[in-house]
């Protein structure tokens, strides 16, 4: 299905300074600044939030282990390497476990093309035996700044009513179902 809305941006969220950025979803936005704001409003409503990145989805180059098995020659399609190398951010996914289904930031490589950056990423970041790799040039990342924390994230600490555990709906629903004879 064609997406006729604004361009898509991938959103990466960092809970704490010592945690990696994790891909938590996408937003539509007309430009990077609005994408950052939309990311904050859609994904930054919980108290855990330290930093957000947004990257235009079209700037992400991705490979899965399965794709590479089916197309072993994928890296041969490379274009001639010219110019100087630029830094790329590398993201991997290494687990199907429910709490770890995110593609997360693992580090950087420098390369002249996306294909060679991907090859370097796969060779460099082997920990955890990843099966999905994403890369994007660093310049494609738009980030919240240190001084955005106070206005963008800190107010959520006083809004616990947003959290599902503030509502006893699970117990209440069970009771209603029990009383109405449903299983």
């Amino acid at each position, binding site marked *: 299905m064609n997406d006729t*809305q*604004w361009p898509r941006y991938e959103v990466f969220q960092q809970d704490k300074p010592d945690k990696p950025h994790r891909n938590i979803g996408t*937003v*539509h*936005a*007309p*430009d990077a*600044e*609005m994408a950052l*704001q*939309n990311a*904050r*409003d*859609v994904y930054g*409503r919980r108290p855990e939030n330290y930093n957000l990145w947004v990257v235009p989805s079209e700037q992400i180059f991705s490979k899965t282990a399965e794709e590479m098995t089916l197309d072993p020659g994928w890296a041969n399609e490379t274009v001639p390497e010219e110019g100087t190398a630029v830094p790329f951010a590398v993201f991997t996914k290494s687990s199907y476990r429910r709490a770890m289904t995110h593609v997360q930031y693992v580090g950087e490589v420098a390369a002249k093309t996306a294909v060679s950056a991907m090859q370097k990423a796969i060779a460099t970041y082997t920990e955890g035996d990843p099966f999905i790799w994403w890369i994007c040039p660093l310049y494609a990342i738009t980030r919240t700044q240190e001084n955005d924390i*106070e*206005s*963008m994230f*800190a*107010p959520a600490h*006083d*809004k616990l009513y947003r959290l599902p555990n503030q509502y006893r709906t699970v117990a209440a629903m069970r009771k209603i179902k029990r009383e109405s004879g449903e299983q």
Partner: protein
Amino acid sequence: MILTPERQQALADYLLALADDELILAHRNSEWTGHGPILEEDIAFTNIALDEMGHAKIWYGLVHKLTGDDPDRLVFFRDAADYRNVQMVELPKGDWAFSLLRQYLFDTAETARLPYLAQSSYPPIAAAAAKIRPEEIYHLRHTQSWVKRLGLGTDESNRRMQNGLNDLWPYAQQMFAPLPGEDLLAAAGIVGAGTAVHAAWLNVVTQHLTDSGLQIPANDQPPTNGRANHTSHLDALLADMQLVARLDPKAKW
């Protein structure tokens, strides 16, 4: 700073005006929930409306401290004639350009007022302003981003924004009309002088609206300066907002 009976009355009136503005605008903007122009903005604008309702709660809490009035009673059991909001916030939501611009004009007014309140000689106001200010920084970042993009966007978005501005501009000036007793409060350093807040606001919005390809309308005379005067739109809004609470005034929530 001593809270004389005159100052206390003036302060309660001032805080009630702030609270009513926030509440009515929040309720109006909640009408966009589920109807925003795009999903992300639906969520963003609903967040802002919720924040403003939170600010209203803070100001009603300070009214309660001064007068003993129960905030729930103030919200759900006053009729339009007893509300003290400006007319701008009670106007129907109009199109997206209108609602967005209204929120922008309101955010800039709050942002102009809050630095004075943050230094209030009445500590509860200073504490409330400190809590509200970070949220307003974000509201303003969001609404001013949109004003610029729509003002400089397409012919249609510019036309809608200009139409909205022409309608809103006179109403917006009412936000700065002095309240009875406000001079007493300003002299005691409890709130900022309305004229200074108005001048700061005018500077900021004139610059940004002009940069956004919009013309500042010539008509800057609000239809009324009295906060007891309302349009019939407020009756309809209150009928909706107060319906459930009034069905059973003794119900426990």
